[in-house]
C-alpha cells in the first residue's frame, strides 16, 4: 500500500475541519479503504470526541514520536467501520511537542500500512498548522461562506503556494442556500471568484452535524443527512470518482419539507 496523505486546514477556527476529517474518514472506510485519521491539534484534541473514541485512548501521537509506544499501539480501531483508525492528539502537551519532520517520518511509516492518512489541522498558520501540512500530498482548504473565513482561507492558500504544496482543493462548509438566495450569504461562486482553486465539495448547513458531534457519530454515518451525503461525495471525489455536485436548492427544499413532516430538523 502507499497511502495518500491528506490534510484539512482552514486558517480560521471553528469552520468544520474536525467534522470534515471524521466524516471523510468514515466515508472513505465505508468505500472499503483503509484509513487512519490523525488529530494534529495537540493540546486541544477533539477528533476523538467527534469520532466517539474518546474513552478508548491509551497512547497518543506524541507517545509515538517520543518512542513510548509503537505506531500500531496508538492506532485506535473504530469498530463501526472496518479499516478505520484514529491516532489521537496529546491533550497535555503543546504544538511544540511535534515538529514537521516528525510528521513526515510518521507519514512515511503510515504510507505502508493504509490507503489514506487524514490529518486534522489546528486553526491558525503557526507551528501546529505547519506540522499538519508537512507530510501532506494533498491539502483541502475548508472555509465557510463568510468574508473573514474566506480571507483566512486565501491567506492559507498563499502560504501553501509559497511552500510549493501545489494548489489545494476547496471545501465550502455550512452553506445555507436560502441565505444565499436572499443575498445574505456569499455564494459558492463568490468564494471561488476570490480563491480561484478547485472546488471539491460544498457541504450544507445542517443541524444533524451538531447532533452527530454530540453523539460521537460522524455525520457521514447518517444516511439521511445532507451534510453526510456531501462528505460522502467528497470522499468519492478524493478516490478519483467524478461525482456530480448536489443540487442544494431542490434537495434542500425536499429535505426541509421532509423534516418538517417528521417534526425533525
Amino acid at each position, binding site marked *: 500500500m502507499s497511502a495518500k496523505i491528506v490534510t484539512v486546514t482552514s486558517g480560521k477556527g471553528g469552520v468544520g475541519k474536525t467534522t470534515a476529517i471524521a466524516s471523510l474518514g468514515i466515508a472513505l472506510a465505508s468505500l472499503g479503504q483503509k484509513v487512519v485519521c490523525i488529530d494534529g491539534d495537540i493540546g486541544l484534541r477533539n477528533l476523538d470526541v467527534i469520532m466517539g473514541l474518546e474513552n478508548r485512548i491509551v497512547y497518543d501521537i506524541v507517545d509515538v514520536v517520543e518512542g513510548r509506544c509503537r505506531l500500531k499501539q496508538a492506532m485506535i480501531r473504530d469498530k463501526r467501520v472496518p479499516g478505520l483508525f484514529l491516532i489521537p492528539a496529546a491533550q497535555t502537551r503543546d504544538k511544540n511537542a511535534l515538529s514537521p519532520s516528525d510528521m513526515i517520518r510518521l507519514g512515511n511509516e503510515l504510507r505502508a500500512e493504509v490507503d489514506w492518512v487524514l490529518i486534522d489541522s489546528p486553526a491558525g498558520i503557526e507551528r501546529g498548522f505547519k506540522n499538519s501540512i508537512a507530510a501532506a500530498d494533498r491539502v483541502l482548504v475548508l472555509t465557510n461562506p463568510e468574508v473573514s473565513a474566506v*480571507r*483566512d482561507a*486565501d*491567506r492559507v*492558500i*498563499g*502560504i501553501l*503556494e509559497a511552500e510549493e504544496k501545489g494548489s489545494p482543493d476547496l471545501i465550502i462548509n455550512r452553506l445555507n442556500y436560502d441565505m444565499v438566495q436572499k443575498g445574505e450569504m456569499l455564494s459558492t461562486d463568490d468564494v471561488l471568484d*476570490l480563491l*480561484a482553486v478547485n472546488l471539491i465539495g460544498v457541504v450544507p448547513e445542517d443541524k444533524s452535524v451538531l447532533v452527530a458531534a454530540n453523539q460521537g457519530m460522524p455525520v457521514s454515518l447518517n444516511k439521511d443527512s445532507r451534510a453526510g451525503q456531501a462528505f460522502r461525495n467528497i470522499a468519492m471525489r478524493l478516490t478519483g470518482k467524478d461525482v456530480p455536485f448536489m443540487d442544494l436548492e431542490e434537495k434542500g427544499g425536499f429535505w426541509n419539507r421532509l423534516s418538517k413532516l417528521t417534526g425533525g430538523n
Partner: protein
Amino acid sequence: MPISSLIQIKGLRDGILISLGAGDWDYIQALLFTQIDERSAFFTGAKLALDVGTRTLRVAELTKVRDELSERDISLWAVVSESPKTVNTAQLLGLATRISKQRPNEMPREKVAEKSKGDGALWVQKTLRSGARVSYAGSIVVMGDVNPGAEIVAGGNILVWGRLRGSVHAGADVDGQKPAQNADAFVCALTMTPSRLQIASEIRNPVEDGKSPKAVKVFYKDDKFHAEAW
C-alpha cells in the same frame, strides 16, 4: 501540455511579450487568439512582441498574424526567433527582431514603467493573496489579482493586470531610499476596487471616487484624484 506552458505572457517595459511553445502553428495560433480574446480588456491597445522560438515562418504566415492582431487593436512590433529565416521574414515586414531596442513612443501604455526611476519595474507573475506584501522602490506590475488583505507599496507606479481588491500605495517613500514621495505616480488595474488606495501621501476616499469594474488608471493631480480609462 497546459496552455500556460505553450503560451507565456510577460510584461516588457512598455508592452507585452508572448512566447509561443513548440507545436502545430495553426493550433498555437488558435490558442493565442483564444487567450487574447478572453482578456481583451488587457490586450486592447497593447504593443506586442512575439517570440516564436525555432519556428520558421513565411511572409504569408506572419502577415496573417499581424493582421489578425491589428483587427483586435493590438500592434505587433517585433518577432523574436532563433530561426534566421523567420528573422529575415520579420525584417522584410518591417518588424523589429530584437526587443531590447528603444522605440519611439506611440502607445499610451508606453508610460507604464517610465516613472520607475531607471531601475525597471518589479514583475509579480501571480495573484497576491491575503497576507502577501510586496514593496519595491520602483514600479510594480502584477500579472494577476491583488486580493483583499494583500498589500503593495511602490516607489513608482502600480499596475495590476487583474482585479485590484487589496491595498495599494504608489509613489511611496519605500525604505527612505528616495528623497521624496512621488505624487506623479499612478495606479492601474483591469478592475479597480481597492480596499485602500494611496498615492504619495494622499489617500483616496473610496466612497467619493467610487469603484470601477473597468480597466482604469487612477492618478492624483491638482489636489484631486482622477480616474480615466486604461
